[in-house]
């Protein structure tokens, strides 16, 4: 890259870098969350529907690109976090809207856990037994999915 090309690329402010980092984290969180949820969801599909084969095919189509993206994102996350001065402190943002979005996402994640607790009171014993061994995946997956989805929802372009 020559010097003139370098000068044409605007340097991102810390706020913009944090914003991009938050967006990427949210996508990783969502994908990992869906990954955790895929186990219990597949168990339900296998038990109660005839779509187990289709579910496996879909999981490959979504799962393989997701794993590649998560691997790429994890590496760039470490690199980018180190670049941003403010991010060396654990997940503290300088940009006010990023702080607001992260806070709303944390609330959503907590609500997801509460919702699982609530729903588990109303499902049948058969389903509870079936999902019993997946409790960690179910809770962790729901937390990550709710966190990531909330951030992506609040950061989408038309929410302006």
């Amino acid at each position, binding site marked *: 890259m020559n010097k003139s090309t370098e000068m044409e690329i605007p340097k991102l*402010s810390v706020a*913009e870098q944090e914003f991009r980092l938050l967006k990427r984290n949210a996508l990783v969180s969502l994908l990992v969350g869906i990954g955790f949820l895929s186990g219990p969801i597949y168990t339900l599909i296998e038990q109660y529907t005839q779509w187990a084969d289709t579910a496996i095919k879909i999981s490959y189509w979504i799962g393989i690109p997701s794993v590649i993206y998560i691997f790429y994102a994890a590496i760039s996350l470490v690199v980018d976090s180190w670049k941003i001065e403010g991010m060396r402190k654990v997940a503290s943002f300088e*940009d006010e809207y990023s702080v607001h979005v992260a806070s709303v996402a944390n609330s959503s994640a907590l609500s997801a856990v509460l919702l699982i607790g609530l729903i588990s009171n109303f499902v049948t014993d058969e389903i509870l037994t079936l999902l019993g061994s997946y409790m960690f995946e179910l809770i962790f997956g729901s937390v990550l999915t709710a966190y990531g989805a909330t951030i992506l929802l609040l*950061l989408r372009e038309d929410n302006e």
Partner: protein
Amino acid sequence: MNRELDNNIAKFRAKHKLSQQDLADAIGVSRKTISTVETGRFTPSVVIALSIAQHFETTVESLFYFDEG
């Protein structure tokens, strides 16, 4: 009483021929912060309100007001 916060940031930006990104960079926030404040989706802190007012050399009251519809 229905009091909704509204603002004149877009008008001030237009008057000073500034984009959202220009204003965001000037006061050290993301463009998203400016855009969500402008549309009323996000209520900024006093620090941001004062920073924007200071940038436009005006008062916070002339930027933000209650839309009592």
